[in-house]
């Protein structure tokens, strides 16, 4: 009897795992596959999946046509890179101060920073939009980067503070006894041994900034439309160019999905664990 029960359990779990995999990857694979088929195949009944028709023409078209995807990708790259870089520099300093430099009320400051994660973007974006349109910051890289820091900085501070706290206190004390100033301790001891998590936090911030849509649609017009905006507009304007629509979605997702997979270890261990442990 226990053998049968064991067998059944394993059977159901295997079945569940396969279902889960199909559901998780199916839509993505479907999008990739159909982005490689010509419009005529997609619009025939049933869809013509003949591998002989596979083509990259959708990709060539979205690159060639002036539909904003190329400049969108470039804008996204610029904005995500600067946001994560600036967020990393400012955020790592603040995280270290909160973790180790005896800031008064540091736990309360941290809770406030965490709570900011939960403000709906719409609350801050209305006043920001008014201020930025008056100062000419709407539709500029700089403006969007500053606004993105509002959600990147809290994440960076939260993750890195957790990491800096795991750096043994004795290391910093040893450096102090060796004659390092607090800044030198940060610069020569703490930063070098934190390079992997720093880099990975940067990657995480990059993904978040790259994927952002809500602020971008409000704060960009023409010049700094991000890839997400380009795709959204494209899907609204050229409703029936399914292949190109999917190709641009795939293109915009490749960098972030690739980064997530390459840095999965950190995202799984660092960020996910960080969210459930205070």
């Amino acid at each position, binding site marked *: 009897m226990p053998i049968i029960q064991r067998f059944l359990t394993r059977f159901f779990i295997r079945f569940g795992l396969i279902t889960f995999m199909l559901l998780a990857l199916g839509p993505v694979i479907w999008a990739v596959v159909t982005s490689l088929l010509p419009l005529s195949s997609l619009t025939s009944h049933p869809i013509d999946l003949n591998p002989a028709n596979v083509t990259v023409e959708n990709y060539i078209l979205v690159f060639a046509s002036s539909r904003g995807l190329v400049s969108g990708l470039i804008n996204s790259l610029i904005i995500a890179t600067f946001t994560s870089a600036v967020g990393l520099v400012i955020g790592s300093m603040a995280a270290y101060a909160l973790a180790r430099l005896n800031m008064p009320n540091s736990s309360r400051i941290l809770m406030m920073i965490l709570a900011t994660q939960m403000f709906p973007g719409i609350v801050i974006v209305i*006043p920001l939009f008014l201020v930025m349109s008056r100062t000419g910051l709407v539709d500029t890289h700089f403006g969007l980067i500053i606004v993105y820091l509002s959600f990147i900085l809290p994440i960076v501070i939260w993750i890195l503070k957790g990491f800096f706290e795991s750096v043994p206190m004795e290391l910093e004390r040893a450096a102090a006894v060796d004659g390092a100033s607090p800044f030198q301790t940060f610069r020569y001891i703490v930063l070098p041994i934190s390079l992997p998590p720093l880099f990975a936090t940067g990657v995480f911030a990059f993904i978040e900034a790259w994927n952002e849509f809500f602020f971008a649609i409000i704060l960009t017009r023409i010049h700094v439309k991000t890839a997400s905006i380009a795709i959204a507009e494209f899907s609204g304007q050229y409703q029936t160019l399914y292949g190109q629509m999917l190709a641009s979605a795939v293109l915009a997702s490749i960098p972030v999905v690739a980064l997530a997979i390459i840095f999965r270890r950190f995202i799984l261990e660092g960020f996910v664990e960080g969210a459930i442990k205070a």
Partner: protein
Amino acid sequence: MQTTNEYNRKRYRLGLWFVAPAVFVLLIVLAYPIFASLVLSFLRVRFAGQGLSFEFNGLNNYADLLRKDLFREALFRSVYYTVIEVVSVIVLALLVALMLNHPLGRSAFYRVVLLVPWALAPVANAVLWKWIYNANYGILNQALRGLGAIEENIIWLGKPWLALNMILVADIWKAVPFIALLILAGLQNIPSYLYKAARLDGANAWQQFVHITLPGIKTTFVISIVLQSIWALKVFDLIYVLTKGSPADSTVLLNYLSWRETFSNLDIGYGAAIANVLFALMLMLALVYIRALRPRQPQAQGG
């Protein structure tokens, strides 16, 4: 009497320098706008020539909220959307996490699978589902017809409640992986000796689940529910790409409504009032989160 030595004084000073830039940025992009948004919600904002004119409007914007059906409907739909999303996501994520915590599901491959929907750009996700739901050529209709489940193509995004539920499906699909990862991390933080001890005490699989697994991931659960509620209340990109609020405003949720009132209808004060209602809802959830995370009474140092 207590003197702080040179070194500790330097540390303190460095600390101030180190938090200053972050505090400065957050004051500008968070504290100021939150405050300003509150002020705006009491104003009537009009376009006057090149600029804007502001005039005090008392509680009228909030009174408008109560008067307008669309707000009430959006609020109701937002609550419906959030409840369904949270329940579905938590249940599915728990299932996935349990499977991935089982020896058969331990392979790193499954975790990579989870990361794909999570990392996907939200707009790409929306476009992807727009294609799947496509009434004429979408795989959903074709598959259901192939199976004989339906005879006519269904216009998935064309009927009021159906459209909202289809948006929910797309959102749940993208949200499950992250919560599953959270719960999985929670499961793995349960020390294995607890299970060994329970087995020695004769507990069966179900008893182990109820007495060890569930209490072990209680905090993770609360956090997941709060985070997911907040994200569900913020939904925007899916609506923007899939329906733009149609049909007949049946997919207009709070966040979308606030955006539309502010940036399409240019009723900035009213939009801000809606935003503040949303803010209040989320703040309550945020407080729950902070309570759940608050560490137990810190111990005295020494030794």
